[in-house]
């Protein structure tokens, strides 16, 4: 399965075909993670907050290709995307393993992914550099086997997503 997760509505219906799921996070109600560790130690694999995030993290886990579309703020994902990514920890276990010599959480049934991050907004080189380092960290904790970041202005976001979907079809 392939997943497009966006923090802004995208007019890409013509790009969506079988096997591609598009989610506009800005339409969903997703509360902040409260750090209760319930998804690791009370109801493993399941978040105790029963809002729209529970529709999304199983899709993240199942997808072998993802496009994440997010505004950039302070070198990271802005609130909508960041809140969802924080709520995706039920797909990991509490337990720690060594990965490339570093400690990271053991993953549950999570597909290794090819990730494209469409990072939009008015960003300078310093902010982009922080974001690159962030995504490099994400790769280890979010099962990216490869990743590519596309920095664009806000008005170029949709065309960047279309390009990335075309790449999937090759």
């Amino acid at each position, binding site marked *: 399965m392939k997943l497009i997760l966006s923090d802004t509505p995208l007019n890409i219906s013509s790009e969506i075909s079988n096997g591609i799921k598009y989610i506009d996070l800005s339409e969903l109600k997703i509360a*902040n*993670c*409260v*750090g*209760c*560790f319930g998804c*690791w*130690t*009370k109801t*493993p*694999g*399941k978040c105790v907050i029963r809002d729209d995030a*529970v*529709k999304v*993290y*199983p899709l993240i*886990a199942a997808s072998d290709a993802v496009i994440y579309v997010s505004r950039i*703020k*302070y*070198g*990271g*994902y*802005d*609130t909508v995307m*960041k*809140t969802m*990514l*924080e709520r*995706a*920890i*039920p*797909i990991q*276990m*509490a*337990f*720690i*393993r*060594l990965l490339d010599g*570093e*400690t*990271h959480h*053991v993953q*549950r*049934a*999570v597909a290794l992914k090819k990730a494209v991050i469409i990072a939009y907004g008015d960003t300078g080189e*310093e*902010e982009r550099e*922080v974001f690159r*380092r*962030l995504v490099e*960290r*994400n790769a280890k*904790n979010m099962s990216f086997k490869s990743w590519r970041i596309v920095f664009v202005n806000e008005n170029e976001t949709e065309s960047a997503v279309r390009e990335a979907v075309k790449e999937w079809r090759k």
Partner: protein
Amino acid sequence: MAEIIILNASPRAPKSNSKLYADIFIKNCKEKTEYYNISKNNHTELCGKINGFTDLLFVFPLYADGIPSTLLGFLKTLEKNPPEKKPTVSVIVNCGFFEPAQNDTAVDMVKLFCAQNGFPFGSALQIGSGEAILDTPFRSFAERKIKMLAGCISDGKQRVLKTTMPLPKRIFIRASTSYWLEYGRKNGVTEEEMRTMSIEKF
């Protein structure tokens, strides 16, 4: 004399490890301190309180490799409601991973906020194995570095401090596994259940 406002940006602020780290900081700091939890609804109110302080210390956990949404939201409010005189910003960031360096990006994000908004950046303390270190014989490692951070803020020094449990990684992993199994046991959840590969289907 420095006057330090301490803001806890943990999503579970009142019951968080960040609160415990802040308590240790307050106990070891010679300067006047005031402590607040950042909650969903008090961002503007807290921005108003920052006026008059020479230093602002954020205490928070690493979330998804960066600053938690709670802090992100607060920084966005602070950007719109800056104090007249901007305090020097320092941070204590902790992660459950062994390596304190896994907190680097979160520190960079706060530095970037400071650079974009004209706040001086002071010092950073990055704590690895931060979920459990205070409940272990290695608590003093964290306490010592927190005391050093308090000294840096008092003296207006810019330093990056790091600490973690003084263990080989494989021993850390074993200790961490025991910690989480005990956590699950208290909830009546077995190791097999905690190790399920299943993720709920929706």
